[in-house]
């Protein structure tokens, strides 16, 4: 199925829904007095968009908009995840005290727009479309990161993000231009065919690939393109941090996979892939993966700001996910997809608890968690502990299963060094995750630490995340099946 522009609209329900909602919410903002209604509307829109995206999974597959986008199970998978991430963000935003007086109308519009961009990122199969989607997401994110206008840190985060993002995407575009020059096409698949046909690709392809990797790598916070992440995560409003850590990263991962798998690799038909000749990106990424997880974990070790700690942790997790990326097998892809789901659950959960603490005490550092379990926050503390252990990859939580699949993929390929580095990193990671647990449980509250009062909406969502983390840690067949169905790239 290869559809033109008009026919494609029939298969763009989620995107259309989001696009219309952007306009509608912007309009409503002018009339409505009660701005929190906007948030609820946004929430519903996102729910419907996500459902629409999920329903696409059952339908046809093919090219949309003259091969600009692909409609395949892979796109559907990521759209669902991204929709859920947006859902969580909006849910958090509704109760966030940071965002209380900050132009909710524009805020939700931007969130919707950003989500729309991410949807496109998940399905773009053309370098131009990829660039547009990426910039769409980036530029809305810049604004969202700097949304707390009275807050210098927020503005600083926005500017750093912008400069960094600008350079990274600039490099990417430059790389794209080189590839375009070599192959004369912007379409991933044709590009791959051209390069394969040419054989013996020279250094230019490698340079181009590396530069493109910079653009994608910056989105998923891969070393050495990760340096914006901690600062931006720390400065941005918490729901946005969560959105960046979960949504943006997932979208970037989707784009990365789509570019490198159906684009720059050949499918061998037996569940394995081969990178096109002359462009040894796998070994480059192996190195990047090891360094990413190590740097992320080491830097997180002594971090006291939990937001920042989670930022470093998300860098490390990008490194773990890349383990699945470099093995060039379907198992690896499956592992990444699976990990994306559990990463969503546990990371968003952690941000939710952090938000509750932030709302309650105005603190987002380790001391804000001090003795949490002993001052009324037994349930949030328990949830946080579960998320932390899950992030550390301990059974019986979903995080372990996620790591398990990643390691399995790596071990299957007998990449022992990567496996061992990954393993050691899990140990290091446990230390700082356990610091939070320690603060909550092993330390006693100090006078002046407020009694923890958990608000209901956030508690509900936390509950859902906990349930997911625990249930998928014990019985994850549905998730892995979902992931398995979702590695079908249209056209390969």
């Amino acid at each position, binding site marked *: 199925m290869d559809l033109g522009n008009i026919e494609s609209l029939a298969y763009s329900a989620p995107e259309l829904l989001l696009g219309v909602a952007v306009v509608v919410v912007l309009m409503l903002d002018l009339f409505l007095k009660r701005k929190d209604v906007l948030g609820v509307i946004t929430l519903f829109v996102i729910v419907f968009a996500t459902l629409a995206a999920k329903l696409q999974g059952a339908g046809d597959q093919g090219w949309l908009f003259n091969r600009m986008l692909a409609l395949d199970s892979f796109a559907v998978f990521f759209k669902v995840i991204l929709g859920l991430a947006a859902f969580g963000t909006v849910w958090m935003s509704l109760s966030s005290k940071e965002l209380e007086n900050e132009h909710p109308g524009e805020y939700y519009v931007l969130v919707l727009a950003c989500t729309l961009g991410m949807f496109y990122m998940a399905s773009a199969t053309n*370098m131009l479309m990829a660039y547009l989607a990426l910039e769409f997401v980036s530029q809305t994110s810049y604004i969202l990161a700097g949304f707390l206008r009275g807050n210098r*840190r927020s503005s600083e985060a926005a500017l750093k993000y912008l400069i960094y993002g600008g350079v990274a995407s*600039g490099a990417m575009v430059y790389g794209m231009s080189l590839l375009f020059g070599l192959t004369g096409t912007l379409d991933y698949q044709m590009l791959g065919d051209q390069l394969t046909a040419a054989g013996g690709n020279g250094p230019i392809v490698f340079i181009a690939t590396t530069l493109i990797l910079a653009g994608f790598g910056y989105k998923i916070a891969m070393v050495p393109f990760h340096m914006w992440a901690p600062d931006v995560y720390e400065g941005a409003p918490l729901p946005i941090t969560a959105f960046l850590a979960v949504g943006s990263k997932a979208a970037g991962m989707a784009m990365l996979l789509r570019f490198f798998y159906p684009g720059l690799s050949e499918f061998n038909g037996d569940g394995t892939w081969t990178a096109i000749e002359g462009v040894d990106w796998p070994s480059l990424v192996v190195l990047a993966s090891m360094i990413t997880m190590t740097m992320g974990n080491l830097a997180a070790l002594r971090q006291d700001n939990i937001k920042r700690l989670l930022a470093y942790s998300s860098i490390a997790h990008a490194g773990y996910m890349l383990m699945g990326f470099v093995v060039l097998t379907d198992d690896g892809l499956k592992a990444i997809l699976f990990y994306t789901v559990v990463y969503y659950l546990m990371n968003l959960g952690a941000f939710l608890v952090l938000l509750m603490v932030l709302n309650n005490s105005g603190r987002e550092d380790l001391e804000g968690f001090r003795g949490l379990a002993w001052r009324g926050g037994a349930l949030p503390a328990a949830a946080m502990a579960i998320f932390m252990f899950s992030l550390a990859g301990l059974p019986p939580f979903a995080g372990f299963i996620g790591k398990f699949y990643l390691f399995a993929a790596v071990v299957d390929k007998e990449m022992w060094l990567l496996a061992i580095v990954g393993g050691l990193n899990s140990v290091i990671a446990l230390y700082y995750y356990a610091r939070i647990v320690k603060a909550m449980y092993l330390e006693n509250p100090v006078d002046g630490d407020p009694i923890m009062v958990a608000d209901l909406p956030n508690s509900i969502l936390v509950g859902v995340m906990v349930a997911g983390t625990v249930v998928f840690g014990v019985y994850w067949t549905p998730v892995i099946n979902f992931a398995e169905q979702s590695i079908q790239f249209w056209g390969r």
Partner: protein
Amino acid sequence: MFESVGLHHYLVVGLILFCFGLFCVLTRRNAIGVLMGVELILNAANINFIAFSRYSAGSYDGHVFSIFVIMLAAAEAAIGLAIVLSIYRRAKSIDVNELQGLHW
């Protein structure tokens, strides 16, 4: 003489522009200057796209791409300037090196 101006010349110009852009973002301390560096990088890519489109690709994809890049560069500049402005209001400075409130 004009006939001898070929693809390579454009590419070299693009590369030089790219390097200038990089040099600019690396060394400028003024936020506006850094933003301009980013623009240079993007324009380097534009030149490449147009040149490739003209000389080798045989399609207008490159032109389209560069138009979009120009557009997005403008949008990015707008957002960038807005952010710089908001920072200037607070800090009375747009020196990026003084923007180190977030670190470690």
